[in-house]
């Protein structure tokens, strides 16, 4: 069977255009989203893992290693089977920090720009053989198809031209669909289509082998019985150690190969559907692996005159099926295309982010996005050219398996570094760089150099060391062994930098780790925008800050240090997606740096809590119990009926409980994570001063709140911080003692009054005797003279002494008021008491004339001391009279309410001012002119009523409608 060159060229170009078209219409949105985002599409797009080597080379691997060849699929399949555990941490990191490539991931974790450049170099070296493999597979299959038509040399030339043309078309495709920043929908659908073609082609050839060549399973069994050496071939090599090494290599490829990482992690499918991939991708691999042995045996059965690696093409060709031959060729072309496009895309990202961007300086005033786009395109084109030149330099001397092993063993060197990202926070950059360098040097000397130069041994200290691809097994084990040894050894014996520790802890986030809290010297989001304007240009800076604020759901006015730290990390993550982690962290470290000196050993409590909140549903067993315990304690503190806040040693507020929020009127969400200085006054001054002071207790600090005086007592305790630094966090307790303070003041006042009372009783007693003497002398004077002037003077003296006596009497009776005994009370008529008082008051003709309305009924009887009750009425009625206008009406009313007698005395005066209402019952309080009242009258009434176990209350105004009058209400018990 033969094909014309033009036929094959047309078929190839036609197929590439089809793939091209699928990508195009997907970008245009012509393919429904349900198809584009279907899990099957994503799983198939991951199928680029199976490159041309999986399509052709694995048959050769099966020939050499028997069942060992399955390691290629089983290794990768196993990794994906455990994806939720093994890959999920990496996927989560990739998503959260916008990590675009494996090198980015390593740079992010080890915080070393050098590591990024080194990893890119090693990846480039390692992946070139894989690219050459794809080109070689395409070139060789072309050669096989048209061999009969062309001479050997002409075939080679045509092959090279075809390979160059193939490279050119692929470069165009990659530039058009893979170089923009957005999610590459077109690329994903195109790659899924390619995988579909690939798996269908392989299955079709497998079925052809099984049913066409062998007549089904029974036929195959018969053939195997006849040629048992083929079955022997399956089992013998698996007993050697090499198949285990193969398994190790292939497990590593699933994460360290740049194209798998690119498609699996950065193009999103894994992020959303880790669990579907867990079984769906191994299933895809199973389908790819099923036809391998039938194809191998069919090749032998048909005596295909080709190397085993091309049996996939040779079986349909020598069976005589033209259409299946084309399908096989298309399948191989498809596999090579998918792998090449994605490998080059991911390598371009690495080269750009780790070599070019750090070396070049993009001009911020020009559109940074378009500069990046053109740079990417240039790198993609160069990569394709480089791959082609490498392929030519190898001159077809090596089998696909050799080239694949060459590539895989180099990418194996990244395994220790990657494994440490999620599972070993101690690993550091020195260890990583030393390990990868050592591993790569061994690989380069043992495998790459022999392939390039043809040497097959090295003389070292008089020993001849065999080199070359035949030694792959030893080279792989020795390079990985020394790599791991150096990585672990150096990491253990050298310290980690602060930056590295911070990143390492971010990476092992699902562990309950102790993230270090770092301080920023910016205080607002606007300040970050301003600082980023310098490197990015103001428009881009603003756009990036807005994007990050949106991502985090934060407001533009955000000032909390905790939130600003998160904002900074988010901006860095977003920028990483744009220019790579290397440049992004460079920009952020230069313009919005963390101040490390202050942060030694400070644990970011807020971050830990945030993470525990997020991972709550993931915790089980003891971790869940501990978390519940934490929640319980937190709730206890949160709901404690005492205002509590806790401060980090750098005065960041770590906790603000609900009582605190109630006391201060500041919500917990507003202040948690912010610096103490951001608090509103007066709290800021109060808490800052106390936090800075040496004393543990600060009683009764006066503050003004809502124009009222408040008194706050503060207590403080230290929380043991990081031992090495002696830093201590603080817990503060605030106590609102305003009520106690007011009560104390009132108590002091009463105590003073009581003293005055006792004093005045003594004074009154002392004054009484001389006043009696003066009164006697004045009376004598009246009898001794007829002189009217003297008589008038004597009368005046008598009236004044009478007044003194009354004052003294009031004082004495007030001070003695508590000593009357209730046992001596008898039932008295309140109506009679009131009438008596009215009679007495009526005698004072010089006072205001008022009308007394005694409406009390005679039945109103209560136990009491009649004299003292008369005194009560006299005092209340005289007060009412003094307040009343001329001819005003004073009403005395009363009724019985169950076991109480209630008497109300109301007037038509102006009433009592609100501010006086509370004070009128206090002794010595009077609104009358000096000399008019003693201020003891109402106080005495109050104490007499109290002695009668009654109550006295005042209402003013009594007449609410007219707003005048005062009403005194006396409640007396009907029985003692």
């Amino acid at each position, binding site marked *: 069977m033969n094909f014309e060159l033009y036929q094959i060229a047309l078929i190839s170009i036609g197929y590439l255009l089809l793939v091209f078209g699928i990508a195009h219409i997907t970008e245009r949105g012509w393919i429904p989203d349900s198809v584009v985002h279907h899990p099957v599409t994503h799983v198939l797009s991951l199928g680029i893992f199976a490159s041309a080597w999986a399509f052709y080379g694995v048959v050769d691997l099966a020939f050499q290693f028997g*069942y060992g060849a*399955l390691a290629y699929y*089983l290794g990768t*399949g196993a990794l994906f*089977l*455990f994806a*939720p*555990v093994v890959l999920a*941490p990496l996927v989560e990191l990739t998503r*959260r920090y916008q990590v675009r490539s494996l090198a980015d991931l390593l740079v992010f974790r080890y915080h070393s720009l050098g590591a990024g450049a080194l990893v890119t170099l090693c990846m480039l070296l390692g992946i070139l053989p894989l690219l050459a493999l794809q080109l070689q597979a395409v070139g060789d299959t072309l050669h096989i198809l048209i061999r009969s038509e062309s001479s050997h040399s002409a075939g080679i030339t045509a092959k090279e031209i075809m390979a160059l043309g193939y490279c050119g078309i692929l470069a165009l495709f990659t530039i058009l669909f893979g170089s923009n920043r957005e999610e590459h929908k077109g690329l994903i659908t195109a790659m899924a289509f390619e995988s579909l073609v690939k798996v269908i082609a392989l299955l079709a050839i497998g079925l052809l082998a099984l049913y066409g060549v062998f007549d089904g399973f029974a036929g195959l069994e018969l053939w*195997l019985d006849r040629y048992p050496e083929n*079955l*022997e071939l*399956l*089992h013998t090599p*698996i007993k050697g150690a090499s198949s285990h090494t193969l398994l190790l290599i292939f497990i590593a490829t699933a994460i360290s190969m740049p194209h798998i990482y690119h498609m699996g992690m950065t193009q999103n499918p894994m992020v959303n559907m880790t*669990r*579907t991939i*867990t*079984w769906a991708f*191994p*299933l895809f691999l*199973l389908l790819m*692996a*099923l036809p391998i*042995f039938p194809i191998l045996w069919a090749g032998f059965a048909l005596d295909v005159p080709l190397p085993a690696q091309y049996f996939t093409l040779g079986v349909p060709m020598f069976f005589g099926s033209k259409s299946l031959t084309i399908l096989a060729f298309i399948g191989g072309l498809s596999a090579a295309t998918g792998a090449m496009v994605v490998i080059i895309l991911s390598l371009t990202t690495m080269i750009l982010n780790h070599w070019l961007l750090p070396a070049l300086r993009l001009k911020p005033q020009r559109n940074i996005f378009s500069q990046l786009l053109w740079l990417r395109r240039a790198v993609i084109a160069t990569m394709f050219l480089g791959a082609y030149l490498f392929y030519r330099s190898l001159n077809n001397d090596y089998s696909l398996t050799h080239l694949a092993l060459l590539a895989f063993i180099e990418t194996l060197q990244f395994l220790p570094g990657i494994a440490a990202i999620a599972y070993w926070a101690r690993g550091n950059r020195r260890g990583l760089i030393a390990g990868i360098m050592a591993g790569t040097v061994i690989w380069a000397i043992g495998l790459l150099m022999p392939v390039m130069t043809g040497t097959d041994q090295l003389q070292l200290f008089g020993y001849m060391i065999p080199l070359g691809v035949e030694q792959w097994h030893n080279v792989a084990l020795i390079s990985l062994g020394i790599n791991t040894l150096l990585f672990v050894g150096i990491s253990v014996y050298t310290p980690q930098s602060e930056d590295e520790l911070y990143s390492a802890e971010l990476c092992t986030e*699902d*562990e309950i780790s102790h993230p270090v809290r770092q301080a920023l010297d910016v205080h607002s989001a606007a300040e970050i925008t301003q600082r980023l304007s310098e490197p990015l240009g103001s428009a881009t800076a603003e756009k990036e800050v807005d994007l990050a604020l949106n991502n985090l759901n934060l407001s533009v006015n955000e000032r909390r240090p905790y939130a600003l730290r998160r904002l900074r990390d988010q901006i860095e993550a977003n920028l990483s997606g744009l220019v790579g982690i290397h440049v992004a962290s460079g920009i952020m470290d230069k313009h919005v740096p963390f101040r490390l000196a202050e942060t030694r050993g400070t644990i970011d409590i807020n971050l830990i809590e945030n993470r525990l*909140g*997020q991972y*709550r*549903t*993931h*915790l*089980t*067993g003891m*971790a869940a119990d501990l978390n519940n315990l934490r929640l319980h304690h937190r709730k206890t503190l949160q709901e404690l009926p005492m205002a509590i806040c806790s401060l980090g040693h750098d005065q960041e507020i770590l906790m603000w409980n609900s009582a605190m929020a109630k006391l201060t009127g500041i919500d917990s969400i507003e202040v948690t994570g912010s610096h103490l200085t951001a608090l509103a006054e007066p709290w800021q001054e109060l808490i800052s001063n106390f936090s800075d002071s040496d004393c543990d207790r600060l009683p009764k600090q006066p503050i003004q709140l809502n124009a009222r005086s408040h008194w706050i007592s503060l207590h403080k305790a230290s929380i043991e911080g990081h031992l090495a630094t002696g830093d201590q966090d603080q817990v503060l307790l605030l106590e609102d003692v305003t009520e106690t303070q007011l009560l104390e003041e009132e108590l002091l006042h009463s105590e003073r009054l009581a003293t005055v009372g006792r004093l005045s009783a003594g004074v009154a007693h002392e004054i009484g005797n001389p006043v009696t003497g003066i009164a006697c002398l004045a009376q004598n004077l009246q009898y001794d003279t007829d002189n009217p002037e003297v008589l008038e003077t004597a009368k005046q003296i008598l009236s004044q002494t009478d007044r003194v006596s009354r004052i003294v009497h009031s004082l004495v009776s007030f001070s003695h008021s508590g000593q009357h005994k209730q046992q001596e009370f008898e039932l008295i008529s309140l109506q009679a008491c009131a009438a008596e008082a009215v009679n007495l008051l009526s005698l004072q003709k010089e006072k205001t004339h008022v009308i007394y309305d005694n409406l009390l009924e005679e039945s109103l009887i209560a136990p009491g001391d009649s004299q003292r009750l008369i005194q009560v009425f006299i005092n209340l009625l005289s007060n009412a009279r003094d307040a009343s206008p001329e001819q005003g009406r004073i009403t005395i009313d009363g009724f019985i309410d169950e076991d109480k007698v209630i008497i109300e005395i109301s007037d038509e005066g102006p009433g009592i001012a609100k501010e006086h209402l509370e004070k009128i019952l206090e002794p010595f309080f009077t609104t009358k002119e000096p000399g008019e009242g003693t201020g003891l009258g109402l106080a005495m009434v109050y104490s007499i009523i109290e002695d009668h176990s009654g109550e006295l209350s005042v209402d003013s105004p009594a007449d609410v409608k007219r707003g005048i009058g005062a009403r005194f209400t006396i409640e007396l018990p009907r029985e003692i």
Partner: protein
Amino acid sequence: MNNQRLIILLLLGAYVFSPTILTWMINPDGAWYRPFIVWAIVILIAFFTQGRDKPVDSNKNPNV
């Protein structure tokens, strides 16, 4: 994370049973496709365990 113990148990199980399974799988008297059968069974197990876990999965990450 939380399922470390499960993984360790699985690894232990794999370690204990792998010689038996491997011997059975590559027994020269058996069918050549035995490894594929084991593989398919593993995929089925994965399908059922992951399928059952799905509702929990949709609840994760309440706030980022």
